[in-house]
């Protein structure tokens, strides 16, 4: 003992040697890409009562995004499942960070059976499809529905649900549960009593109405400048009206010069006029802008706001009782429009996926079949006041004014429902690029032409980026 004479130099030397040995160690630790082994999915016998062949005692794990919807509506479905399969236990988890919680498990090959892939931290669905990490749910779509064995599940759903799950093929990888209606939101009372006007069906009427509002000291429009992409909620259907479905397809399939057409120009020019005439109440900046702008709107400072159907729930604390919240379809630009007034941007949302390697895949599909039952759809509506995608599920119920007008708008639109697929497929192009371009445009920093060029440039970049999985027209 006591023969050690340790000096600083020796310690540094040993440390360095240790760290040099690390590369060897690094290669030993498992890499993130190390795939898992194939596990056999649990399966039971297919019967009339069990059309998907669920193994009755197999546990089921469900991950639900814990956002504005909470997870009570999903617990309702889990309870249904446990009641049907008394020996099975549903382990339902909620999280705000879907990607953090679920992505590593998907990569490892040990995923949950059902995942509500939603929220700011949702996983890129195109990447999941490309990596073959999600199941094709065609089997479920062709299975008999929960309420009526003679009707297939796919026939109980509103148009768009299946299409939203397809990524350039017939297979369907994603199931949405609630329909969002985008458009121009207003107060019926303000429109009728204060302005003594009807909802404008053409852009000229819109401008005239804004002029009238200005005389009464009101702004015609407002929008959250901190999230300028909200403008898309009123612009998108107008692109469709002006240019037809051909124009919208051109956006989706990143066709050359899709953003440089006359239709796009007309829509941008319409909003330029709105800005030039100072009809827009601005200055709601920062990350909380949508709440600030919505509050100014419910307090009657502006007549119209581009928004989605969640606004009724989100703004309910500041909305006066007799406000009469309504959504209107976007006005027509002129008589030569390719699609009529009433065209509505109303995509199904709140996506669910069944991971490809889910150990109880059949159970996951069955859980979704229950989600698409009338019972669960009505419960979903009660919990979150959103329109379920199950056809006619909430018909005849007493609805809040906003939802009721959204229902009417959907009915009025008929076949003219439009869906921006590129927004889902190339999230960046909408969330980052459209946001930046329209932000500058609405601030008056760029002209119509510059805005169109910038969008085209972003679309071209997306088309050329090898890291972006492209969806081809099927």
């Amino acid at each position: 003992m006591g023969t050690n004479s340790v000096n600083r130099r020796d310690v540094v030397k040993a440390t360095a040697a240790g760290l040099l040995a690390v590369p060897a160690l690094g290669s030993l630790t498992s890499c993130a890409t190390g795939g898992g082994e194939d596990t056999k999915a649990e399966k039971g016998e297919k019967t009339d009562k069990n059309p998907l062949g669920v193994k009755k005692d197999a546990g089921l794990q469900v991950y639900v995004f814990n956002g504005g919807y909470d997870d009570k509506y999903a617990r309702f479905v889990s309870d249904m499942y446990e009641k049907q399969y008394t020996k099975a236990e549903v382990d339902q988890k909620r999280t705000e960070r879907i990607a953090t919680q679920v992505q590593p498990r998907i990569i490892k090959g040990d995923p949950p059976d059902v995942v509500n892939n939603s929220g700011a931290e949702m996983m890129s669905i195109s990447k999941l499809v490309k990596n073959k990490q999600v199941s094709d749910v065609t089997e479920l779509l062709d299975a008999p529905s929960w309420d009526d064995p003679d009707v297939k599940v796919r026939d109980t759903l509103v148009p768009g649900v299946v299409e939203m799950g397809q990524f350039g093929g017939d297979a369907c990888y994603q199931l949405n549960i609630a329909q969002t209606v985008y458009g121009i939101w207003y107060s019926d009372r303000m429109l009728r009593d204060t302005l003594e006007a009807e909802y404008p069906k053409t852009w000229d009427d819109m401008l005239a109405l804004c002029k009238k509002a200005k005389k009464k000291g009101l702004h015609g429009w407002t929008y959250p400048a901190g999230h300028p992409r909200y403008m898309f909620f009123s612009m998108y259907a107008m692109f469709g009206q002006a240019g037809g479905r051909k124009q919208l397809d051109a956006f989706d399939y990143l066709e050359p010069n899709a953003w440089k057409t006359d239709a796009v120009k007309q829509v941008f020019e319409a909003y330029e006029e709105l800005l030039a005439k100072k009809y827009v109440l601005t200055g709601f900046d920062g990350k909380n802008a949508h709440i600030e702008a919505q509050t100014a709107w419910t307090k009657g400072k502006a007549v119209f706001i581009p928004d989605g159907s969640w606004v009724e729930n989100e703004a309910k604390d500041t909305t006066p009782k007799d406000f009469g919240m309504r959504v209107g379809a976007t006005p027509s630009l002129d008589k030569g429009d390719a699609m009529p007034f009433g065209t509505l941007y109303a995509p199904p949302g709140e996506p669910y996926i069944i991971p490809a390697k889910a150990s109880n895949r059949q159970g996951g599909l069955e859980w979704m079949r229950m989600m698409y039952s009338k019972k669960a759809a009505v419960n979903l509506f009660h919990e979150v006041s959103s329109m379920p995608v199950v056809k006619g599920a909430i018909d005849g119920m007493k609805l809040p004014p906003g939802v009721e007008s959204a229902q009417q708008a959907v009915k009025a639109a008929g076949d003219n429902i439009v869906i921006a697929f590129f927004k889902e497929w190339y999230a960046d192009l909408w969330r980052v690029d459209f946001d930046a371009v329209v932000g500058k445009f609405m601030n008056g920093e760029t002209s119509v032409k510059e805005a169109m060029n910038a969008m085209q440039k972003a679309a071209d970049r997306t088309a050329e980026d090898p890291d972006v999985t492209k969806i081809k027209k099927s």
Partner: protein
Amino acid sequence: MKTETRPATGGQTSGKRPVGRTRASGGAAFALAVVLPPRFTPERVRNDRRYRTLDKYRFIVGFLALPLAFYAVFVISPFLQAIYYSFTDWAGGATANFVGFDNYVKMWNDERFWASLQSSLLLLVVVPLVTLALGIFFAYMITAGGRHRRGQAVSGVAGSSLYKIVYFFPQVLSIALIAVVWQQVYSSRSGLLNGLLGSVGLEGLEQRWLGGDYKLALFSTMAVIAWSFVGFYVVLFSAAMGAIPKDIYEAALLDGAGRAATFFRVTLPLIWDTVRTGWIYMGIQALDAFAVVLIMVPPHALKVTPVYLYERFREGQFGYATAIGVVLLVLSMVFTLIVMRIGRRDQIEY
């Protein structure tokens, strides 16, 4: 393992026996001695000259092994993995194909990357200068800026101990909280800043601070980062200044040095090492700026490289994102080297 045969240092002498004789039979016993305490080590091995070296390194390894293992697993190995992934097209799936320098070529041609890097580099250059200058100024006022009192060469301004605590407040708050609070302060319509300007008749200075204008957003971000870190440097530099012996100040005072001369000729050179360390640390903080920008600034107004990197991850472009991360790592290192280099001065011992 190669053993050392250099003569032992230190007072004790041992290893009288020639090394050669024990080598044949000693190998196994020697290997065993690595794990045996000296008490149970055979005399023959203990008297071996090599045993001293073994005993010494065994001692060092004993207390370094665990922390080094942690460091290796949780710091070094992720770094190495990240460097590896930056040469692949990994998209979150089970496969990552090696693509050579494709990600770096893409970055070179990526306008959005360069735009974000411009913001990050401006932060890197300006923020440390402002923060450190303010920190040094406040610290100097606290330790040596006051009026001369009887019997003391230097003293702080009145209430200096209170200031020291107040300056430190922002450091106690989490950065996310700071970003949320300042977002409200900057709000165009309901913010404290525009409200204050309006109430004192300076309506002309009211701005849409985070409303989309790049320069304003950059300025606002710099102000928040500087504000949140300045207190830390006040405390750091006060401590460094407090360590300077009072008699140096007395000598300067006798020579007729004023406050400015005392600061530039005495204080600053004596705390230079601390300033340099602070500069490096603050530079890395400014180059990051992730939380403040992500939470406070709308992405269409301003984007720094770490936020751009985060967006690449969100889009599932893991390979490209890690390549950006590697570039940030290199940038931090280059910055550190430059500061070490230009900041090198003779050390003054006191």
